[in-house]
């Protein structure tokens, strides 16, 4: 038999045949290791857990187009690829247009979106009724509902006129088509469609005076009158009385007014717009600006506007630390995808702050547990040494050197450490799992690497805890085994 075999035989015998004492030491190491490995698991799992919690506060990243226009579906999906599907909890596109209620002529913001994603990126939305699930259904803001007196299942007729987009910026530009109208004789309207050339001169003009008296204003419908405007700079000089024809004063003044107040439209046929009947599926209560919006599916939005796959903004809920998020933003910039990503600072920053505080707390508790475990193991080993004074004396009397005594006790301690470490790693996972399920309401995955780490750390702690007891053991006088002491 080799010395090593005998060494192992002595140590295992010591542990197995002195069960009750060793069980106490094993328990103190095991419980310490359990709490340690549990806390370390939680420490590393907290960002993920808290990240998921923070995602309840809404999107933490916003994608918009780089050049102030609209975002197309392709560049949005390229941007999502940068982040990776695993990290994206939700990605909600929004398309905003101003539409009107047909009956009341009131304007409101219509938002096209994806309701499945809305529930992921804005879990805090409170919906009375349900999210729209079919075509021609809308989710209306509480404020809108109050204004128009809409209830669940009410049907709203809404209309969208693309020209309205140009109202605010409706100044004439080279190449534009202008549409104008004014009240003529007997308040009957005259209308005019102008096209401008690239020098801002009138290139063509169509005049509708069919509502005017035939023998007076109606005469202006022939080409001899409209011809005089062709080639003139737009807008016309004011108070040019030569354009006012006697015998058709009211009508010609109306034509001049229609020309001067004409507004830009990109497409004369779109002026008519689309009108759709929508059923209220739900009423949205957020306490925010969303209450003044009407939400509909992207398909309905496309039907309303005639434009597909265009978004104004995409809200993303992405799991990851502030640094990781900043990394995604940078990568998107570098790849030049035509999108600009912005972080929602109030979310990402508070998340980082809370996480670092929580991790600091767990770290502190871990350190305290570490020290307590060492004290506990040290005390137990001290008791072991005291209890085994005679045995140590005997071993020394039989010729054990100080080093053999050290190695034997260290061996026992580290063996206990290893055993306690395995126990701690397994129980620690259970402990972390229980904490996770109860506190964060989600489970954690077992980190295989944690097993060897816990075992090694436990062995080191056990070894350190044994140092003082070993010192005491070495000082024991072999002579104490003599006589009846």
């Amino acid at each position, binding site marked *: 038999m080799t010395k090593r075999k005998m060494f192992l035989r002595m140590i295992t015998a010591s542990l197995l045949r002195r069960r009750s004492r060793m069980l106490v030491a094993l328990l103190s190491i095991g419980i310490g290791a359990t709490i340690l490995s549990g806390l370390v698991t939680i420490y590393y799992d907290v960002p993920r857990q808290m990240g998921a919690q923070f995602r309840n506060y809404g999107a933490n990243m916003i994608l918009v187009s780089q050049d102030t226009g609209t975002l197309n579906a392709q560049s949005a999906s390229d941007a999502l690829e940068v982040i990776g599907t695993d990290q994206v909890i939700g990605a909600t596109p929004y398309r905003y247009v101003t539409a009107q209620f047909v009956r009341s002529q009131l304007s409101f913001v219509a938002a096209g979106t994806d309701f499945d994603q809305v529930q992921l990126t804005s879990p805090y939305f409170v919906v009375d009724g349900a999210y729209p699930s079919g075509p021609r259904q809308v989710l209306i803001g509480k404020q809108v509902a109050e204004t128009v007196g809409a209830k669940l299942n009410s049907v709203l007729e809404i209309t969208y006129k693309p020209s309205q987009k140009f109202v605010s910026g409706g100044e004439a530009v080279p190449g534009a088509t202008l549409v104008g109208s004014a009240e003529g004789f007997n308040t009957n309207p005259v209308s005019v469609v102008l096209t401008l050339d690239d020098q801002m001169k009138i290139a063509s003009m169509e005049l509708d005076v069919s509502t005017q008296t035939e023998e007076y204003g109606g005469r202006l419908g022939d080409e001899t009158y409209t011809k005089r405007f062709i080639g003139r700079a737009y807008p016309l000089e004011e108070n040019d009385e030569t354009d006012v024809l006697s015998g058709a004063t009211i009508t010609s003044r109306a034509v001049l007014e229609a020309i001067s107040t004409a507004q830009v439209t990109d497409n004369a046929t779109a002026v008519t717009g689309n009108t759709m009947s929508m059923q209220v599926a739900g009423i949205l209560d957020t306490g925010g600006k969303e209450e003044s919006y009407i939400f509909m599916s992207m398909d309905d939005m496309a039907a309303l506007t005639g434009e597909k796959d265009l978004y104004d903004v995409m809200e993303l809920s992405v799991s990851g630390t502030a640094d990781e998020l900043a990394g995604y933003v940078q990568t998107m910039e570098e790849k030049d995808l035509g999108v600009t990503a912005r972080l929602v600072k109030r979310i990402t920053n508070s998340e980082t702050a809370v996480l670092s505080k929580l991790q600091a707390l767990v770290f502190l508790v871990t350190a305290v547990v570490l020290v307590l475990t060492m004290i506990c193991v040290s005390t137990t080993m001290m008791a072991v040494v005291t209890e085994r004074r005679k045995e140590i004396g*005997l071993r020394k009397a039989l010729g*054990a050197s100080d080093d053999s005594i050290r190695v034997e006790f260290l061996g026992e301690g580290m063996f206990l450490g290893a055993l306690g470490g395995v126990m701690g790693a397994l129980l620690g996972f259970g402990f972390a799992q229980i904490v996770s399920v109860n506190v964060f309401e989600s489970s954690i995955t077992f980190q295989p690497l944690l097993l060897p780490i816990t075992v090694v750390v436990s062995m080191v702690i056990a070894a350190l805890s044994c140092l003082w007891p070993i010192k005491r053991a070495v000082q024991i006088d072999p002579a104490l085994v*003599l*006589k009846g002491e």
Partner: protein
Amino acid sequence: MSLLEIRNVSKIYGELKALDNVSIKVEQGEWVAIMGPSGSGKSTMMNIIGCMDKPSKGEVLLDGVDISKESSKKLTEIRRDKIGLIFQQFHMVNYLTAVENVMVSQYYHSMPDEEEALEALGRVGLRDRARHLPSQLSGGEQQRVCVARALINHPELILADEPTGNLDEANENIVLDLFAQLHKEGTTLIVVTHDPEVAEAAQRTIVLEHGRVAREIINENFGK
């Protein structure tokens, strides 16, 4: 040359002279008893011979080496290599079996050899009890295991401290018979005792009183 020669050894604890200028010689193969009442210096003598203590004055030559000047580390080595110890309280490692207890001695000395350890147990008539824990052995059996442990490394000297102090008469006789057998094989034996019967089994008895050698008695009936 004597195996053990103690020359003018004194051991002083403060005011107390535990040993006072003692000189003793023990020859190779001799069986010597050291006797004396409590406080006579027996224990101190035992500690010094057993390399567990050093004298304040004087020389102790064991196998020609002066152990009174050695470091405690060196003393441990000398004790391990030359001396087999037997104690009054037996002192077995209570979680190891009889044979493992014998092997502990081998372990510190050189190499554990279970066969040899079993043989040694056979010599003291305990081969069939080799796998028993101390708690499963009687006092006499435990002391016999200790004898086996003491002789396993073939020491120059077996030093026994009240070896029969905790034994009944039957077991005392068994142990003394073992000593007689070891003596016949040429082992040097020093037995410290206060029991005259145990002392009488030896060839020679050195009586200590107040830290001095009071007298020496040659056992004329030895071997008869």
